[in-house]
């Protein structure tokens, strides 16, 4: 999923485009979250002690609800204003990738059967996790829950990450949140990763800035070209063109048309390499006009949430009520303004290069010092 090797390229060539931050730093920010990706994470990660998904009395999975409820509360508690964007129809161009995925599923199913016969618990768990699939019911459950919680839900006509990017581009939200780096190819100015991860993982949030990436890579606006060459969900890549070659080819020729004309013998263009259409997809994705979307955060409907979560899905009432309380408190907090919306942020005025040491050097010196002290 996503674009191969892009994170490494960014770290190598545009380190200033990537920041890590605690979740607190996003107070007051509106963020569009790729819901499908989060749902998938929840179904994989939220499990009972037996390693199975949580279920209600009638045996339906409820892991996604649990994840959606608590992770959303965590964000709101930290002053973030989330918007969830759900997938519409997959684009036709993705059919190749989707076919591959369903092949892999079939193979995993076989392996699972085998593991079950052998009784290898570890393998069984591994393969069940891989077989997780987000269904329409899961999506509908979450939309219902979110609406009850007063969180805006956007239904994308097509790919959710494209819609997230469009919302961020239009300024309706500050950033897009997804694990999928495709979102940058769709033109999201800021991408957040790990936003919906569990607090227990203690992973800081990764923040990517598109303009700084393009600047660092010395590229023009056409981020889509690089995405296509590196390999995205929509078409195959040119043979023997890895991330490094892809970057240098783009710098040299600026567009894929020219690159194809100048390939070496070894570099073979795959069959049905429909880059023009994919580029179209990235540059003019099928999205609703953000102007038509009205994002409103409302008060949570306590009674309805309790009815849905506790009576229908068997969650503990006290915990859910506590959760709602946190949610209400968090909503109040999100009214807090941010200083950087009043004052202009600049890098430091009298930056002094000389005193900046790299950490390695500092460590070494400290070590020397501490041995001396002994």
């Amino acid at each position, binding site marked *: 999923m996503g674009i191969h090797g892009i994170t490494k390229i960014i770290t190598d060539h545009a380190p200033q485009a990537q920041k890590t931050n*605690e979740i*607190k*730093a996003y*107070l*007051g920010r509106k963020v569009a979250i790729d819901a499908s990706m989060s749902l998938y994470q929840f179904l994989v990660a939220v499990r009972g002690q037996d390693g199975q998904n949580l279920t209600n009395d009638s045996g339906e999975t409820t892991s996604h609800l649990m994840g959606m409820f608590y992770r959303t509360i965590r964000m709101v508690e930290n*002053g973030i204003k989330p918007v969830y964007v759900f997938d519409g129809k997959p684009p036709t161009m993705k059919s190749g990738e989707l076919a591959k995925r369903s092949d892999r599923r079939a193979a995993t199913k076989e392996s699972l059967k085998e593991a079950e016969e052998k009784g290898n618990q570890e393998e069984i768990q591994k393969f069940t996790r891989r077989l997780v699939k987000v269904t329409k019911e899961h999506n509908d459950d979450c939309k219902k829950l979110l609406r009850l919680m007063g969180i805006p839900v956007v239904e994308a006509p097509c790919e959710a990450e494209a819609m997230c990017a469009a919302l961020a581009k239009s300024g309706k939200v500050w950033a897009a949140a997804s694990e999928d780096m495709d979102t940058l190819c769709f033109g999201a100015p800021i991408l957040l990763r790990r936003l919906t991860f569990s607090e227990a993982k203690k992973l800081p949030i990764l923040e990517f800035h598109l303009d700084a990436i393009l600047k660092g890579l010395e590229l023009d606006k056409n981020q889509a070209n690089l995405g296509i060459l590196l390999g995205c969900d929509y078409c195959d890549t040119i043979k023997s063109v890895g991330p490094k070659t892809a970057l240098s080819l783009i710098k040299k020729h600026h567009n894929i048309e020219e690159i194809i004309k100048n390939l070496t013998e070894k570099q073979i263009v795959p069959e049905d390499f429909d880059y023009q259409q994919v580029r179209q997809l990235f540059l003019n994705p099928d999205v609703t006009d953000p102007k038509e979307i009205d994002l409103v*955060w409302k008060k949570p409907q306590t009674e309805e949430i309790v009815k849905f979560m506790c009576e229908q899905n068997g969650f503990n009432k006290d915990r859910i009520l506590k959760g709602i309380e946190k949610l209400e408190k968090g909503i*109040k907090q*999100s*009214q*807090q*303004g*941010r*200083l*950087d*919306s*009043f*004052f*202009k*942020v*600049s*890098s*430091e*005025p*009298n*930056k*002094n290069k*000389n*005193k*900046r*040491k*790299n*950490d390695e*050097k*500092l460590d070494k*010196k*400290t070590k020397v010092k501490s041995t001396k002290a002994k």
Partner: protein
Amino acid sequence: MLEARLPQASILKKIVESVKDLVSQANFDCSDSGISFQAMDESNIALSSFLLRADGFDPYRCDRNLSLGIKFASLSKILKCAGNDDVVIIRYMDDADILSLVFESPNNERISEFDIKLLDIDSEYLSIPDQEFECKVKMSSSEFSRICRDLMTIGASVVIDATKEGVKFSATGDDGSGSVLLKQSGSIDNEGRGVVGTSVEMVEPVSLELSLKYLNNFTKAAPLSDSVAINMSNGIPVMFQFDVGDIGYIRYFLAPQIKDDD
């Protein structure tokens, strides 16, 4: 190199104590005019900035502009080792990765020396425009601390209303509400007797809602100064200023809470 001798360690101690819970680290910018820093809290809501002018030190020497990254927790621990009346000498040798602090007891019989490791901090710097505030309140800093503490028991935020009559602080919570009104004191000659009155200077009445959690953090600077200046305009961050004698100041900026209707 930098060498700055501060006659009273207590000033530095109080400054560090008043910011260390708000921001964890900052770059100390040293130039021939003095030492200053600016740092934002991790949620980007509040900013603390401080300045000690070169003439507050005796002597003061800074050959070129320096930016020294310091972790407040470490600095605070080291400063706890200094007596209130000790003299502090802050010393930095060019291209070193440590800052030295020397404490001398008043009778010069005890000299202690500590080194603090410097950090490489990439902090964002906010440029704060010089602005005329619509309303300037000056009041006793201990009174301000007390009000913030009292209202914290009621609610999470305080509404400050400044009018010609005076300044009113009010809070509302789940269990009730409360308010404190300070009237403008008639005369300023109170100050001579160690009592700081309240004065309000205004172009326009101002009403702002602020987070009490942050205000209670700012009040840690109250020991530095008898009075606090609260400079406000509607809809923009508030500035609180505590003067450090006549040699500098510590300022806090706090973004107001915004009624959501955008």
